[in-house]
């Protein structure tokens, strides 16, 4: 699904991680890689550690970690896992 637009959309993402769990560390590195190479300075990535903030996990229904919620561009999309499949992540971000 591609959506051409004049102005660059603003990217708002939330990444839920579990402390320094192996998967979580990988996910942080993977998403940063993708974002920094494609939309550097045009995104806002919030990293939430559910081990310290379980209420956030309840609120967002975070059952598994790591979990990335793409809040914007809408509609909201959820990707779980280490985000190792860059193609899938880019498609979800519509890049």
């Amino acid at each position, binding site marked *: 699904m591609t959506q051409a637009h004049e102005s660059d959309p603003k990217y708002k993402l939330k990444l839920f991680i579990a402390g320094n*769990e192996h998967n979580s560390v990988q996910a942080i590195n993977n998403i940063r890689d993708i974002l920094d190479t494609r939309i550097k300075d045009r995104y806002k990535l919030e990293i939430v550690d559910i081990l310290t903030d379980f*209420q956030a996990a309840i609120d967002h229904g975070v059952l598994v*970690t790591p979990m990335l919620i793409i809040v914007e561009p809408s509609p909201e999309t959820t*990707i*779980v896992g*280490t985000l*190792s499949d860059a193609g899938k992540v880019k498609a979800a971000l519509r890049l």
Partner: protein
Amino acid sequence: MKHETTNDKCALPKIPTRIAGLDDILQGGIPEKRTTIISGGPGCGKSIFGIEFLYNGAKMGHPGIYVTFEERADAVRQNALTMGWDLEELEKQNLLFVMQANLDPSTLISGDFSLTGLFSIIEGKAKSMNCTRIVVDAIDILLRMYNDFNRERSEYYVLHDWFSSRKITSIMTVKSSQDHGLATRYEFLDFMADCVIHLDQRVREQISTRRIRITKFRGSDFGRNEYPYVISDKGLSIIPISMSGLRHRPLGDPVSSGNESLDSILGGGYRRASCVLIAGITGAGKTTLANTFIEKACARDESVLFIGFEESEEAIVTNMLSPGIDLRPAIKSKKLRFLTSLPEAMGSEEHLMRAFNHISDYKPDHLVLDAISACERMGSQQTAFEYLIRLLNHCKENDITCILLNQTTKSMDIHQISGMEISSMVDSAIFLGMVEVGGEINRMMLVLKSRGLAHSNQFREYLITDNGIELLDVYVGEGGVLTGAARQEQEAKESATQRMREHRIMQKRQELNHKEAAKQAKIAALQSEIDMFKAELDSLMEEENIWHQGRDIRARLRGKIKDDPINKSILGSV
């Protein structure tokens, strides 16, 4: 109850589920701080099981968390409300937390992930609520996210470990179905869990029945049978057939069977709210015995519901007139109600519903069912069993005395006379049989069982007379219990022997008299001999005296005797 954990001997600590009947089978409850798996197909009541466990616990002040992967939390709350369980109220009191954990199906998966999110939520909530009870419904949905058999297995290990390390008592539901693939896929759960409960719903003869079975309980004994259960508007209700006595109220006072002699054999009569089985071959008088009870009960102003599958109301009333039982006044005064139908007329569920409706509307003190053997015609033996168990259970719970009639063969084995393996539900059992002795048939009665009462274990002969059933006195001779002509013959034989004995005594007595007489005669003879002897002796003595006197006279005359007073007197008299 303060003690929520049962701990007998050194056994595994258990937590009562407070699900009707289940704790009896589990012998206390589910294992504390361990994992219990509930498996079953769709519509078995797995979720209800889980919710009921948490609800009952929360009501007692034990907080619980319900994690639902399938249904929305709102739906869970709504469903619970239909059972009368207000989850929201308990959630407000922080005694319950319904956690909706369904993963959006549109969620993309990219790379590996772990269940830390779930654990973190549960841990956070559990800590804040001080909760040790968790239900995961359903674990297979959670595990399926991995779509990798080995991974599912290892993740379950993680989950299991996590729960045990936090001393959490957990129930996890898992789907199982006839679909073999799914059954084997989650088989490993059964191996890993500490307690496995299987729920099953099957349809036979268009009638759906539910069964529960414990397949595993580490470190504990448990009821190993399949038990029927129902999902009512009050939740799950298990009918542990062999343990019904534990759940039901104790048996009531003895109530007359309508026949005094029978009462004495039974040790007082039937027990109120008990289940009495009258079994016998056709024509033995089962209906007559039941109606004897009905007539007397109704006369005492007690009400009876007669469920008949054999005869119509008119036929029963007419037939009973011959042994002198008149049911008409009881029907007129509305103390007796008939509910007759052909077993084939409808399914067992419908039969049961009709019976239940009549029971709740009429509130009878006693119920008579004629006959168990006909129930099979509702479908199958299994159907009849279901019908009877549910009806009996309902009656026991409502303190209704149940009198079941059953047509049997000659066998007197209690398991066979009940026909439907309901023998454990039966409190009193009376067997009516016919015995052929010397070319005639005689009616025999035996009380096989009279729970809670001392009863006679002797066979009794009985007659069906114009005045109802008449029991004859028990006859115990050398040859055991005798009936009919043989009984008379034996009695004649007995009296002949008796006469013989009497005759012999008389003979001996006479002989003795004779001997006595002989003795007397002999004594008399001896006496006369002695007398003769005496007489002879006397005369001799006389002679001797005379001789002496003659000598004295002669001597005196010679002047030899002077002052002899005797001689003087003799001399004087001479």
